[in-house]
């Protein structure tokens, strides 16, 4: 019985690993091919099956004037928009979450839970419903097709995630911890940044990770709210797909666009494996 279990366990782990890793290997291999090696016959292994070339990668940094696609600027645009929006969302979201977790708000029939739900409800709506209001809003204030406009929209999209994760986290931090800090001579602000915040690092990491992922992978709003001035990476990658699909540079750009997420995952994984995310607070 246990042998069968072990066998099945490893079988599925192997199966899943292949399932997840194979597309990556395919993309890596394809990115070094040219038109000839893609279209002639099925090939996998460089040097053996086909002659590898860096052309697919070179195109990405060549300017359009020289026949390239230049994803460098969109790349940094994406990093800037994602990081700025995530940072602002985390800072504002954490403060909002702390307030929602610790203080009681009453305004008419509105209570804390209603406010929390209001934040989360921003994510319940399908993005397409939000696209028209966002478009009109940004064009009214003149931020259409600009980095600042995208940052504003991404904050709206990311802050609910931060609030949601942090409210849940703060609710599990005993209120007595804040009270002890107050008794020990901290004013409420000191209690927050000297005691509550240092103990919330696991929550902040999780919230930050989700914000970065959701900000980075967004295609829809980046597509609708930008035209020529500003381009974000996901839009640029999709735009590569012209009449003849350049599989090699498409693979290369896909790989560079997931690279930051892989780095984030590795950093967070270190925290996960240390058990720091399970929380020191019981």
């Amino acid at each position, binding site marked *: 019985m246990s042998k069968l279990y072990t066998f099945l366990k490893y079988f599925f782990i192997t199966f899943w690993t292949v399932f997840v890793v194979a597309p990556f290997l395919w993309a890596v291999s394809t990115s070094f091919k040219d038109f000839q090696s893609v279209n002639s016959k099925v090939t996998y292994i460089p040097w053996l099956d086909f002659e590898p070339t860096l052309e697919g990668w070179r195109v990405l940094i060549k300017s359009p004037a020289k026949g390239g696609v230049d994803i460098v600027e969109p790349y940094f645009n994406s990093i800037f928009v994602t990081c700025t929006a995530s940072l602002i969302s985390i800072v504002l979201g954490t403060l909002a979450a702390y307030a929602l977790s610790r203080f009681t708000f009453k305004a008419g029939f509105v209570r804390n839970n209603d406010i929390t739900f209001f934040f989360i409800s921003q994510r319940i709506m399908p993005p397409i419903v939000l696209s028209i209001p966002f478009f009109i809003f940004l064009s009214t204030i003149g931020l259409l097709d600009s980095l600042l406009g995208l940052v504003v929209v991404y904050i709206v999209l990311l802050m609910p995630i931060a609030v949601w994760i942090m409210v849940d986290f703060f609710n599990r931090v*005993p209120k*007595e*911890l804040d*009270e*002890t*800090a*107050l*008794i*020990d*001579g*901290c*004013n409420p602000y*000191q209690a927050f940044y000297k*005691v509550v915040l*240092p*103990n919330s690092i696991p929550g902040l990491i999780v919230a930050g990770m989700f914000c970065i992922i959701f900000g980075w992978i967004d295609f829809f709003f980046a597509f609708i709210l930008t035209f020529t001035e500003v381009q974000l990476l996901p839009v640029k990658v999709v735009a590569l797909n012209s009449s003849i699909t350049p599989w090699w540079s498409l693979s290369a750009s896909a790989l560079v666009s997931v690279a930051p997420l892989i780095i984030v995952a590795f950093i967070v994984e270190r925290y996960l494996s240390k058990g720091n995310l399970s929380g*020191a*607070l019981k």
Partner: protein
Amino acid sequence: MNLIGEKITYKPDEQFHLNDVSFNFKKGNLYTILGRTLSGKTTLLKTIAGLLNPDQGSISFEEKDFIKIPVWERNVAMVYQQFINYPHLNVYENITFPLEQRKLSPEQIKKDVDEALKTVGLVGFENRKIQELSGGQQQRVALARSLAKKAKILLLDEPLVNLDYKLREQLREEFKRIFSEGLSQDTILIYSTTDPQEVMELNGEVIVLDEGKVLQKGPAKEIFENPSNLKVAEISNDPPMNVLKGSKNSKNLNFENISLEIPNHFKNLEDKDYNFGIRASEIKLDENGEEFEIELAEISGSETLLHLKRGNSKIIALIEEVMNFKIHEKVKINFNANKFYAFREDEKLVSSPYGGTNG
């Protein structure tokens, strides 16, 4: 120079958490607040600490209006029943935290912390993480932090309740030592608990709290000997004092078809109906006694608790040895009439074996 509370009322919802509570705590004394769960003990301590503002009433300390002073400037210390420490700091940093907050000199901090660590017996644990400590040790850290602060008001909110039996006994002994040695004459110590035994052992001034109301104040011995009413008698005894509805006539005490000779301290009592109170430990097994039916027998440590029934009366007897009983078995017991309390119909004490009355 005392800590004085007057007519403190706190009613955040439908129920009173504190109802017209007044007190006068003097420096250098130990006060225990005895009450069941949800009787308002924690609320009272939090009000004194400044974490809650009462709806009505006043608190003054050293002739200053305490309510106007925010928590972080009150110079109080509090130990919670949950083991609350700062999880991101080690043991040493946990204890220095309030001292650094007060910007004391590093030499002073070192001296105070070392002293506190010694008092609670945690020397050598300075660099441990809080999560690596046992519950008892965590509570010691919390106590050390409170002691190192040398606060003028030290609040302990059921500090032993979350510990296991053995540790509780051990820490309770140590508390007695710490309170007598480790505290200055300037300190007011307020200790809340649900456990009557803790109250008796700490032997301070007691406030009995129930549903936010003060039922009785006085020295521990007085509360034990002369509980002012039935509620206090229940709260201040574990197991709670047995209550038997009965009456007194010129010759006998009568309850549940049992007649007892009138004890000396009942001689001047009016002949009428009473609630008689008798402690579980004053009921003995006796071949010639009265017959009761066993509803439940619990063995705890070296004692047996018998839940007995006769007619409409249910009582608990504490037998000081381990015995096996069958449920629904009949046993014969004897009451020590000299230890009977008499409470009026309105539950006020009229006569106690220790001579106290309420009129």
